[in-house]
């Protein structure tokens, strides 16, 4: 398999008046062709910011450094605005959390899909574009696509809007699809369908997918690899089923244990005490040490390095066995 995206020691800082906030610190990962990578973590853990960096959408005051940030061998850090536009929406598609606010309420479904094609597929003529729009809508499972062409976003339900968003994201057959919490705003019945759709599209189009979610049960079903982020660091990553069935990092284990399991056990839930550290005043050692049940003095003093262990990467001195 070919490496599609290679990220090595990526750090993202924000200079604020109150000091430098390290939103993302020293993360490395690869996405291979046709692979689905799940990214989980709590809000503020840096999952979305990492994606923004891959898409070049970070705000001006962000400072991005990396030993390597390459997409198909092309260095993303040295791109100018014009080359970014080719990547965004062309080679890399993106779906956001809230489909209702991601579509422009002033334009019809057809117009918005057409715009994407006009920018990235200038060789198509009008009739070809219309055909393509229809086939896209069919691909994402919108019933009676012809009638939906002239619909405005407010006339669509949440699930339908998300399907239109997906159609826009895959309009130019991207190599990589970044899905940032694509089902969080949707009902559970719709959520399942959207996940099925994404899995099906990935297979039929051979895309790679980065799937960001806070919901481990969703990530478990759809991804091959998973990386768990905490306070802007990747603290554990590996094969999805392995990480979920036998987590090594205490944080991963804590996250899994705090989900109510679907059995008759109604005893107290495991809960991770405390809250995430302030990114402006990071602890010296392990970022999770304060909330960890497995810590030692060393954890407060030293920042654990990324290690390979049991076919996964880990940033922890005292993994749970």
């Amino acid at each position, binding site marked *: 398999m070919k490496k599609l995206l290679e990220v090595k020691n990526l750090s993202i800082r924000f200079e604020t008046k109150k000091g430098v906030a390290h939103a993302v610190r020293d993360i490395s990962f690869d996405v291979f062709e046709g692979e689905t990578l799940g990214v989980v973590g*709590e809000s503020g853990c840096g999952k979305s910011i990492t994606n923004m960096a891959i898409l070049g959408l970070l705000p001006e005051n962000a400072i991005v450094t990396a030993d390597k940030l390459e997409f198909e061998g092309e260095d993303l850090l040295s791109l100018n605005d014009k080359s970014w536009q080719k990547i965004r929406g062309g080679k890399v598609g993106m779906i956001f959390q809230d489909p209702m606010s991601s579509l422009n309420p002033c334009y019809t479904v057809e117009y918005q899909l057409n715009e994407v094609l006009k920018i990235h597929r200038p060789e198509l003529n009008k009739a070809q574009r219309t055909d393509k729009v229809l086939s896209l809508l069919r691909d994402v499972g919108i019933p009676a696509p012809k009638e939906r062409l002239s619909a405005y976003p407010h006339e669509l339900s949440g699930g339908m809007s998300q399907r239109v968003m997906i159609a826009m994201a895959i309009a130019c057959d991207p190599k990589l699809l970044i899905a940032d919490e694509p089902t969080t705003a949707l009902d559970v019945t719709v959520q399942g369908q959207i996940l099925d759709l994404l899995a099906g599209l990935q297979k039929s189009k051979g895309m790679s997918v980065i799937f960001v979610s806070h919901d*481990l049960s969703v990530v478990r079903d759809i991804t091959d690899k998973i990386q768990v982020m905490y306070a802007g660091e990747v603290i554990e990553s590996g094969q999805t089923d392995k990480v979920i069935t036998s987590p090594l990092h205490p944080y991963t284990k804590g996250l899994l244990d705090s989900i*109510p399991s679907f059995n008759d056990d109604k005893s107290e839930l495991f809960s991770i005490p405390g809250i995430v550290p302030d990114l402006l005043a990071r602890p010296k050692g392990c970022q999770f040490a304060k909330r960890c049940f497995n810590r030692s003095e060393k954890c407060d003093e030293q920042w654990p390095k990324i290690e390979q262990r049991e076919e996964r990467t880990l940033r922890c001195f005292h993994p749970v066995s």
Partner: protein
Amino acid sequence: MSVLKVENLKTFYPVKGGKVVKAVNNLSFTLEENQTLGIVGESGCGKSTLAKTLMALEEKTAGSIFFGGKESAQMSLKERYQYIQMVFQDPLDSLNPRKKAWEIITDPMMINTNASKKECIKKASELMELVGLRTEQIYKYPHMFSGGQRQRLGIARSLVLNPKVLILDEPVSALDVSIQAQILNLLKKLQKEMKLSYIFISHDLSVVNYIADKTLVMYLGKVSEYGHNDQIFNSPYHPYTKTLLKSAHISSSNEIKEFPKLIDTELPSPLNPPSGCFFHTRCPVAKDECSKIIPPVEIKREREVSCLL
């Protein structure tokens, strides 16, 4: 004795064009003391309207609500609010950003009693301790708290009048997983210590399965299935319940895993509900008669179900 009893409750909204949205349509249930009733369903099923009707934020169209044996009509709003309180979904939006923690918590007290500022501050610090907040945070504003702490503030506020019943409207859905567990544990602890009864509204079936004793599944304002948790979650009867369980990927039972997919993905418009059984347009096992006959609510296999099958 039941602390809350709802009989044939209806809440209808008139909308433009002379139509009526039947947001809550003929619901009946009882809540026993120190128990939790879970209410699940998709958005637009009437869960929130039910909560608002119980809190008198919406006027009921018909039916009756009994608070501890007393009918709602015979109670003043003041009495009602001392009996039943509510915790809202969005912890930031439900706290006034211009008020300090103690003012937020004791707002109900200031309105309903003649307590002095000193008494309010004392009560606020007691409650903050009870819900696991540090009392020195009493003068802080909501934006200075984290999401989980804000929800604790909301819970503290709902307890200030010593209510018997709490309506929890999606209290953990805006929170991160690790914080969710903290809040769920807190709710369980408070229930035990204060003999509270909960109405727990959620779209998250695993959470409801964990916290509730009985569960009511709603679809377009009507009850689909209502019974004890082990019946609803371990041997569901209604195809809608089965669909929900299947979509949530949480049940290990083969019957659920192999249950056929929904026919229509879209929820029908509540303005124009289908004929017969409301679910028949999406139901994978519907028969011809489902589109003609409105299924009555019957006791089947020890739970209330409204399904012809």
